[in-house]
């Protein structure tokens, strides 16, 4: 019996992954526990050890394509077995979906076959044929809808969910132009909408669906009928309009140089989102939408800290502490004194975290990750320094384990090495604050009525105003300043 290998969930937040590299090929004998692929998740590239044994019959997932957790990536079995025998049932399984993800019950499982049967009549729409043909090679792009259908086939209690459930995600591809059609595969439309479109000689591909999953319903077709004839006219109208409109507007003058030669125009470049960019986009978007940020900036005189670090590195073997390590340590110690800053907001209340794990933002080629220095408040400067270096190196190699990349309770982000004086960062969801650290710079400072040269650094505490207010933030920054301006205490 052939076994379907599915894309595993390799971290808590992983929703999709990319086979970075296959380590097996068709015909290989695979043992349980053998590394069969490198999988790129939202956080790292990890080795995937097989849960199953057998001969590789088929590698379904191509390298480099994003797939949802649970998608079929390979088929194992006995040599000579037909891998396609299981293919049909090997569509993405909803097993990993959370239980709250109710089936979209307005889409009876029988909808499709019934629909298709009727459409195979002689009066089949012309637009159906290319769509169907292309559906095969493009094949099982696992969309939410198909998952819902699989689930639905099991969840027979249709009526129960009628009581109220989630709005189903809109159809993934809403392309309305004829060129968009190939991507849409079979176009979801109610039987009535199909009939009306047929009777009015409208192509479904030209109509935008407003129902669940982008289903075209009666109202959509009626709307299309209403403006049917104007559309074709409008299409030709606008294309003819563009150049003529641009002439009198006068703006094209800007598109030529003083000799009247046009500037070179280059096409836009689309960049596929990496798993990490997707994760960053999601979490940062969430943070900015949900967290009311407040920003307070504190200047800190760093002369003593700079001196201490130099001396420390000379006298303690095998370490090369950076100023940032000192800041991380000071930030962690200060959190002990201000537990509210080491917290996070929930709907049920504020949770002050018992442990201090300071996340260190590490910039990578395309994104960043924030591995935590665990129990940073209890570590020595030397240990913090070792940890930070190790995390940074391995983050760049993408070899950190998932558990090494999560769990921070507070974050330090330093852009000082780029000469940034000060900046505002975005709070990491699940934390209450992030410390944005600027560059240490020589500045003219007035002390006791005299102008003196001092090394100054600006730090900005960016925090969740729901968890604490400006005064608490200021007090934390005062504690931090005291620790860094009298840094010997950090060695205790």
């Amino acid at each position, binding site marked *: 019996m052939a076994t379907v290998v599915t894309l595993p969930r390799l971290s808590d937040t992983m929703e999709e992954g990319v086979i970075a590299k296959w380590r097996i090929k068709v015909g290989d004998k695979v043992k349980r526990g053998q590394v069969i692929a490198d999988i790129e998740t939202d956080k790292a590239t990890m080795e995937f050890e097989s849960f199953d044994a057998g001969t590789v019959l088929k590698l379904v997932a191509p390298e480099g394509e994003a797939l949802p957790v649970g998608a079929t990536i390979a088929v194992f079995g006995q040599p000579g077995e037909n891998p396609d025998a299981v293919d049909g049932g090997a569509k993405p399984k909803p097993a990993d979906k959370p239980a709250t993800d109710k089936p979209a019950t307005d*889409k*009876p499982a029988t909808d499709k076959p*019934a629909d298709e049967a*009727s459409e195979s009549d002689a009066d089949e729409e012309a637009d159906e044929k290319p769509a169907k043909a292309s559906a095969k090679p493009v094949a099982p792009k696992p969309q939410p809808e198909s998952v819902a259908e699989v689930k639905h086939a099991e969840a027979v209690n249709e*009526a*129960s969910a009628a*009581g109220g459930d989630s709005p189903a995600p809109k159809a993934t591809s809403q392309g309305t132009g004829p060129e968009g059609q190939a991507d849409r595969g079979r176009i979801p439309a109610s*039987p009535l909408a199909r009939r009306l479109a047929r009777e009015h000689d409208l192509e479904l591909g030209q109509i935008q669906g407003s129902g669940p999953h982008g289903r075209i*319903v009666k109202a959509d077709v009626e709307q299309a009928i209403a403006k049917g004839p104007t559309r074709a006219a409008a299409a030709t109208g606008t294309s003819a309009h563009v150049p003529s409109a641009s002439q009198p507007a006068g703006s094209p003058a800007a598109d030529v140089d003083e000799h009247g030669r046009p500037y070179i125009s280059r096409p836009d470049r689309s960049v596929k989102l990496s798993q990490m960019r997707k994760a960053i986009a999601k979490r940062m978007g969430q943070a900015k939408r949900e967290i009311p940020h407040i920003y307070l900036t504190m200047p800190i005189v760093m002369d003593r800290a700079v001196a201490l670090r130099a001396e420390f590195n000379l006298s303690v073997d095998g370490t090369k502490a950076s100023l940032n390590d000192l800041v991380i340590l000071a930030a962690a110690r200060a959190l002990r004194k201000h537990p509210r800053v080491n917290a996070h907001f929930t709907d049920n209340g504020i949770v002050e975290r018992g442990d201090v794990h300071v996340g260190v933002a590490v910039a990578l080629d395309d994104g960043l990750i924030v591995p935590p220095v665990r129990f940073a408040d209890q570590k020595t400067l030397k240990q913090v320094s070792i940890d930070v270096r190790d995390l940074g190196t391995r983050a760049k190699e993408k070899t950190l384990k998932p558990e090494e990349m999560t769990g921070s309770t507070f974050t330090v982000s330093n852009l000082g090495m780029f000469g940034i004086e000060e900046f505002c960062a975005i709070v990491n969801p699940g934390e209450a604050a992030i410390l944005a650290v600027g560059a240490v710079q020589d500045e003219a400072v007035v002390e006791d009525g005299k102008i003196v040269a001092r090394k100054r650094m600006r730090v900005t505490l960016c925090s969740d105003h729901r968890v604490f207010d400006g005064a608490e933030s200021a007090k934390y920054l005062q504690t931090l300043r005291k620790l860094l301006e009298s840094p010997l205490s950090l060695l205790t």
Partner: protein
Amino acid sequence: MPILQIRQAIRDAMKEEMERDERVFLMGEEVGYYNGAYKCSEGLLDQFGAKRVIDTPITETGFAGIGIGAAMCGLRPIIEFMTFNFSAVAFDQILNNAAKLRHMTHGQFGVPMVFRGPNGAAHMLGSTHSQAFEHFYAHIPGLKVVAVATPYDAKGLLKTAIRDENPVLFLESELMYSVKGEVPEEEYLIPFGQADIKRPGDAVTVITWGQGVPVALKAADLAAAEDISCEVIDLRSLRPMDEAAIIKSVKKTNRAVIVYHGWPNGGVGGDIIARIQELAFDDLDAPVLRVCYEDLPMPYAENLENLILPSPERALEAVRRVAYKR
């Protein structure tokens, strides 16, 4: 026109038929001296005597079988189940004798009789006494199944049932016996297989029967407040079923919701959907939804029972969904 409760309409139907035809008699638990567990046979013992109004022991298999035998021999029994949940004990009699004898004897014997009583969930009767039996009986060729929701329908349909030449399952509802309505004084009959539009509308067809009717009507009120016009069709008879009325309405509204007591798996709700998709496929603008029990045995606890029973709110939600409103 006099205003009667459903229980009085049922009583009047039996009384008039017993006066009209001396072959008609009533048999069941507490139908005589107690005047019926729900007072549906009030006064009948006094009027017709113990030969025609017969109290039985708690022996559903027995008195259902005696009724079938009596019907085969030319009488017209009305068998009252104190609730249709107890008919489960007599299921073999109904399935294999009442439904099949005309067929098996090549018409030498008919079984003209009525099984009647309250059906479906009432209020906190627990899992074994809260079941809807139309889904079992409507499955069986040889039976007719009727469910009533108003005094007018109850009287007209019960008289038709008593005069029918075949076994009829006549489903009432414990919580609806005191529902009041106008009933004409002059005699009338309601033929089987005729649905009644309880509320006209043009946006969503809501198909229902029996205890589902008040739920559907309330949901239609709520929907009207949101500017969704529901046409509520009370099927009244489930076997035979007024397919034409359903299809006519669905062709008008392009969408349907079915509200009923009973579980979602199998059953009359799914059967109606099958007919709609077969006969009105090209007129559907949305999937047909059902609002019925959750797929669970009925809990005794009131709060849990309320979650499982079809409610106007759940029906409204389904109406919104098929109307693509939210």
